[in-house]
C-alpha cells in the first residue's frame, strides 16, 4: 500500500512541476541499411529512433522512444516509460507505461546496440520481430546482498506476438496479458572482467498455452579503452499445450532456440566478431545460421559502420547467403552504440 502511495505521489509531483521550462534530453539515431540476399539489393535510409529523456520530478524519470523501422513503415512508440529508480524503499524500482520487460538479455536492448545488426532469427521467433514489449508495469528488486542480485517481475497487457515468417505469407497472433520474471546476478572478476547471468520465465495469464524459459550468460573483459572482448549467449525453451478434454493437456510444440556471439574490440575504433544462431524447430524445421561481423566507429559513440555476412541453413532448403551493411549516426546523449 505504501509503495502505491509513493508511486501516486511521484506521478502527482510530476504533474505539479509541469510548468518547468527545462527541456528533456532529445536524441536522434538514424540508420542507413543495405542488404544483399538472393541476388537482390535493398537500401533503406529512413529508419530513425527519437528519444526524449529526463526527470519529471526528484523521484521519477520518463524515457520515450519513437521508432520508424523501415522506409515503408510509419513511426511508432517503441517505449514510453515512467520509472521510479530511487524513490521506493527496500531496493525496489518501478517502471510503467509501454515498456520492454527485463526478460533475457537481448529483449531490453535497442536494435542499434547489436554489433551483428540483425536480431537472431530464433530470438525473433521466440520474442517477436520487434521483441517483446507492451503496456504494463514492472518492478525490480535489488536484493540486499553483497553482490548485484536483481529480481524483476512484470505484468504486460499483451503477451509475445509470434511472427511466423514463412516464405510467402505472414501470420500474426496477439495473445492476452502475460507475466514474466527474471533473476540476474553480476560479479566482477578482478578489475578488468565481469560475468553476468540470468534466468527468465514467461507465461500467459489466462491460459497455459505459451510458456517460455530463458537462460543468459555474458562475459566481458576490458583491460583498457582500446580493447574488449564480449561473449554473450542466450537460450530459450518454449512449450505450448492444447486442452484436449477437460483437464487433459497435450504438449504440441517444443522449441529450443538461442544464439552465442563473441565480439572483440581492437585499436579503439574497430571490432569484429562471430555469431551462431540455432533453433530446434523453426517452422517445424531445424534452423542454424552462422555469421561474421565487423564494426568501425570513427567518432566514438556517435557514428558506426557495420558489416554482417551470414549463412543460413533452414531444414533441407538450399542454404541462403545474406550480406548486411549499416551506417548509424546519433545526435544527442542517447548514443548509437556502446564504446
Amino acid at each position, binding site marked *: 500500500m505504501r509503495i502505491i502511495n509513493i508511486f501516486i505521489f511521484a506521478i502527482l509531483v510530476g504533474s505539479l512541476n509541469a510548468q518547468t521550462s527545462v527541456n528533456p534530453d532529445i536524441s536522434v539515431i538514424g540508420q542507413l541499411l543495405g542488404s544483399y540476399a538472393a541476388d537482390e539489393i535493398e537500401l533503406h535510409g529512413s529508419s530513425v529512433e527519437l528519444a526524449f529523456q529526463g526527470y519529471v520530478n526528484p523521484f521519477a524519470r520518463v524515457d520515450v522512444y519513437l521508432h520508424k523501422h523501415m522506409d515503408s513503415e510509419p513511426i511508432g512508440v517503441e517505449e514510453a516509460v515512467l520509472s521510479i529508480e*530511487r524513490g521506493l524503499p527496500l*531496493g525496489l524500482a518501478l517502471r510503467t507505461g509501454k515498456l520492454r520487460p527485463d526478460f533475457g538479455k537481448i529483449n531490453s536492448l535497442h536494435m542499434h546496440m547489436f554489433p551483428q545488426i540483425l536480431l537472431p532469427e530464433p530470438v525473433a521467433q521466440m520474442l517477436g520481430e520487434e521483441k517483446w514489449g507492451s503496456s504494463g508495469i514492472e518492478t525490480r528488486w*535489488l536484493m540486499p546482498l553483497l553482490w548485484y542480485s536483481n529480481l524483476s517481475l512484470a505484468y504486460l497487457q499483451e503477451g509475445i506476438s509470434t511472427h511466423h515468417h514463412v516464405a510467402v505469407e505472414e501470420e500474426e497472433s496477439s495473445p492476452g496479458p502475460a507475466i514474466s520474471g527474471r533473476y540476474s546476478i553480476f*560479479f566482477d572478476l578482478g578489475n578488468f572482467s565481469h560475468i553476468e547471468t540470468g534466468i527468465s520465465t514467461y507465461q500467459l495469464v489466462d491460459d497455459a498455452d505459451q510458456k517460455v524459459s530463458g537462460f543468459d550468460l555474458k562475459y566481458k573483459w576490458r583491460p583498457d579503452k582500446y580493447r574488449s572482448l564480449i561473449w554473450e549467449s542466450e537460450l530459450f525453451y518454449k512449450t505450448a499445450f492444447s486442452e484436449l478434454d477437460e483437464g487433459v493437456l497435450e504438449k504440441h510444440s517444443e522449441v529450443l532456440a538461442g544464439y552465442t556471439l563473441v565480439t572483440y574490440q581492437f585499436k579503439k575504433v574497430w571490432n569484429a566478431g562471430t555469431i551462431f544462431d540455432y533453433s530446434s524447430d523453426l517452422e517445424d524445421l531445424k534452423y542454424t545460421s552462422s555469421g561474421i561481423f565487423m564494426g568501425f566507429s570513427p*567518432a566514438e559513440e556517435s557514428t558506426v559502420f557495420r558489416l554482417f555476412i551470414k549463412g543460413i541453413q533452414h531444414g533441407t532448403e538450399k542454404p541462403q547467403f545474406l550480406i548486411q551493411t549499416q551506417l548509424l549516426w546519433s545526435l544527442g*546523449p542517447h548514443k548509437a552504440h556502446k564504446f
Partner: protein
Amino acid sequence: MKSRFILILLMAYSLNAKVNVVASLTDMADIARQIGGKNVSVVSIARGNQDPHYVEVLPSSMIKVKKADMYLMVGMELDQWAEQIIDGSRNRHLRIVDCSARVKPLNVPTRKVDASMGDIHPNGNPHYWLSPENGKLIAQTIAVNLQEIDPAHSNEYERNLEVFLKSIDDLESKWGKTYEILRGQSLIYYHDTWPYFNEYFGLKAVVFIEPKPGIMPTPTHLDQLIRIIRDQEISVIAMEPYFSTKATDYLKQKTGVQVVKMAQSVGAQQNTESYQEMLTYNLEILKEALSK
C-alpha cells in the same frame, strides 16, 4: 534494564559508524579520505589509470553506491555515467555532492557547442582538480558536507581540513622554488586535460595530439604537429597513461621529441597514491624532461 542496554549499544554503534563515501574519481576519493580520516570509508568508481570520460556503468558499481551516505561527483558533465550508477543503486538517502560547486571554470565555450567541436564540455573544462587551489576548494566542499552528514565528528573534519590545506600551502611554497624552471615553458599535450594545471604552474599548451577533444589524430594533423615541433622547438609531449602511444611514438621517431606519461588522477602512476603526491609527480616528471 534490557532496553537501556540496547539503547547504549545503539548509541555506541552510531558513534562508531563510518560515513560511507563513494567518489567518481580517485582524486575526490583521496581528498575525502584525508578530510574524513578514520570516520569515513571511501571507495572510487573509476581507477586512477582509467579515462574518466568513459567509465562503464556496471551493476557492481551500483552495489558500492547502494549503502553509501555521500556520492562525490566531478560535475561539469565529465562523469555523466555516474547518474546511471546512482539511479541503479536505488539509494534514497544518498547525498550527491558536486565537487565543482566552488570552482571557477576555465575554457567555457563562448558560442553554441555541438559535436563538430569534438567532445567539448559546455560548462567549461572539467579537469579542475589538477590545480592545487581547486584541490583546496574540493576539500572545503567535502568537509562542509561531511559535517552536515556527521555533526558528531564536525571538529575532527575541521581539523583535518586545516591539515590538508596546510599541506597544500607547504607544498606550494616548496613547488615555487623547486619547479620555477617550468614557468613559461611550452609543450604539447595529448588531450586538453591540463588547463588548470598550466594556469597555476605557468605552463603553456601549444597544441594537442587530438585535433579536437576526443577525436583521434589524423595523418594530416600529425604532419602539422611535426612542423610545429620543429618550428617552435618543442621538446616534450605530455600524455595520459590510457591513450595509445601510436601517434606519440611516430612523432618521437620523426622529431626526437620526448614523450612523458603524466598522472591525471591519483593512482594513475606509481608513487601517486595521494593527491599531493600526484601533483608533485607531474611537476617532477616535467622538470626532468624539460631540463634535458
